[in-house]
């Protein structure tokens, strides 16, 4: 089976470009050019140079000895938290800002949930001297104050999304409306593996550097390129897409996705799309989606602002539906406990999003010799206030 996008952007039955005509010229321009541009030698050279000198890649693949002892398997951490700006998000924004330049765009817009993608976008806009507007849900602005400040300091304008649940999905709506209103000079840097084709495929390819590095790094550590499992948390699914990419066609590698169950999958306050969703259309693509029987999109909940998206990227819907990936979900409490455990066993404070991936050990027992690579997608500095409140650290 093929797990990548076909020419029209479909992963099995999922994907495509369900966009109003107002967006067609921009999306079509991108569709026609993205592969050609991104694999030009000069593009690759500039992209890789920036990833090395500016982002600090390759990010280490670290053998987590104490965590491994605790959970009875061999655990490696892919340290995306050590990237410049503190998460995997910058891999994609570097790629897309170069793409925007090649397309002659001068103004950048983005949506953000936790603020990591907003910060990564504001960062590359500062780097390239481009105007930057970031849409962010009003609620997320309140709970991710440090990232809002970072974006402002980097010169970006942060515009609150005040409609709906006032979180990531609504910020995405606002960014799309901005693009409709500014169809000529603007490029929309989508931060997750969602949106109309070619976004899911383009974002996945820019993030695929994660699994590309895992392969040669694991070879150095273990003498083999393929782990037994790769594990990632999933909101829209960009870090997961990049972590899985080079293993999708390697059947011996188990693919594990951990969604946010919020207060429990059936609590009514959850973001566990694979368990609660059905096929629908959101933000320009057909994918698994949390919705009412009437087709109204449900407002998701998670303690982590980066995971409370009511859908998953179309690639992940296909991985779920085809059975290629195992899907689990972790509650707020499980993710927070896993974050604390990682902090105290390995000296690494993860983002709460990332904490969900580490909660896998609550749900799955690995064998002693299993090599398990977990994508440590982001660091926890931005979540300190939430950690302080939750663990009463103050």
């Amino acid at each position, binding site marked *: 089976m093929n797990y990548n996008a076909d020419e029209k952007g479909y992963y099995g039955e999922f994907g495509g470009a369900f966009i109003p005509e107002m967006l067609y010229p921009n999306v079509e321009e991108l569709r026609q050019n993205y592969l050609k541009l991104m694999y030009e030698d000069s593009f690759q050279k500039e992209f890789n140079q920036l990833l090395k000198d500016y982002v600090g890649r390759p990010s280490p693949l670290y053998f987590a000895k104490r965590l491994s002892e605790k959970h009875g398997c061999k655990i490696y951490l892919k340290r995306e938290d050590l990237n410049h700006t503190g998460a995997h998000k910058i891999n994609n924004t570097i790629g897309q800002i170069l793409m925007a330049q090649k397309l002659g765009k001068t103004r950048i817009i983005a949506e953000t949930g936790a603020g990591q993608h907003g910060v990564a976008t504001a960062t590359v806009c500062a780097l390239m001297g481009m105007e930057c507007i970031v849409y962010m849900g009003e609620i997320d602005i309140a709970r991710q104050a440090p990232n809002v400040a970072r974006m402002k300091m980097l010169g970006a304008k942060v515009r609150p999304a005040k409609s709906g649940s006032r979180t990531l999905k609504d910020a995405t*709506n606002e960014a799309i409306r901005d693009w409709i209103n500014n169809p000529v000079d603007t490029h929309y840097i989508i931060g997750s593996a969602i949106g109309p084709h070619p976004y899911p495929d383009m974002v996945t390819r820019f993030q695929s550097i994660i699994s590309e590095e895992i392969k040669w790094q694991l070879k150095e550590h273990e003498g083999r390129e393929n782990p037994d499992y790769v594990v990632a948390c999933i909101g829209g699914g960009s870090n997961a897409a990049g972590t899985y990419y080079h293993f999708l066609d390697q059947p011996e590698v188990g693919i594990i996705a951990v969604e946010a169950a919020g207060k429990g999958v059936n609590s009514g306050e959850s973001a566990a799309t694979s368990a609660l969703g059905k096929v629908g259309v959101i933000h320009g693509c057909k994918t698994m989606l949390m919705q009412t029987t009437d087709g109204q999109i449900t407002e998701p909940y998670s303690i982590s602002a980066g995971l409370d998206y009511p859908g998953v990227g179309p690639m992940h819907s296909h991985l779920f539906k085809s059975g290629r990936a195992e899907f689990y979900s972790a509650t707020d409490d499980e993710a927070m406990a896993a974050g604390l455990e990682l902090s105290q066993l390995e000296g690494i404070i993860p983002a709460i999003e990332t904490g969900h991936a580490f909660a896998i050990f609550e749900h799955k027992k690995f064998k002693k010799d299993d090599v398990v690579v977990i994508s440590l997608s982001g660091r926890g500095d931005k979540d300190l206030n939430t950690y302080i409140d939750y663990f009463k650290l103050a």
Partner: protein
Amino acid sequence: MSNRITTKLQEDKKLLSIYFTAGYPALNDTVQIIQDLEKNGVDMIEIGLPFSDPLADGPTIQESSTAALKNGMTTEIIFNQLKDIRKTVSIPLIIMGYFNPMLQYGVEAFCKKCQEIGIDGLIMPDLPLDVYKEDYEATFKKYGLINIFLITPQTSDVRIQQIDDASNGFIYMVSSASVTGSKSGFGQEQESYFERIASMNLKNPQIVGFGIKDEETFKQATKTAKGAIIGSAFIKHLTANGTDKTAEFTKLIR
């Protein structure tokens, strides 16, 4: 029976079409609003099916959609409200909404219901041309529904030709690069866009929407086009004046 949209387009006049969100201001205002619009000389009506995430709409229609959903509006309720509409209303009726609610209802079941009620056409902005042609055109046609596509000032001539070929009613000409309800007045840019489209001699007439709110903008829009659609301005009128002052609104247009 020929489609009411087709018949209406043959009339020798500029057409005034009004959009409103079903379920707004109150859940059960739908039928009265439609009847009043017809009584006051409106030529065609777009009944908005509210959606939680209307990404092509500005604040006015977003807010009316949110309010309609809070009032309890669903696809099933709209169909129930409209089931006897053809006993009292004869002008063309179009359902305008986003694709996901239609998909969840079932595209065929949705189209069948529309035919039973006497709906003449559909506008689904996020159902793109290629998906429509491949997957749904046959179903729309089976139930006698005209699908209406949008074009914008950025749409290429080649694409406009493709849309013209796939259309069998009218083309919804979005007046400017914007979401609904956001621009005030038309400038030189719109004029030249209107003229460019007029000079293409398309087989389908065009009806202009987005940014029309009064007599002046209606006249500008219909100089070359067959008609114009008013949405946000009418919803603002409903918000400010309630449902029983429709005549005051339509008088301001023509």
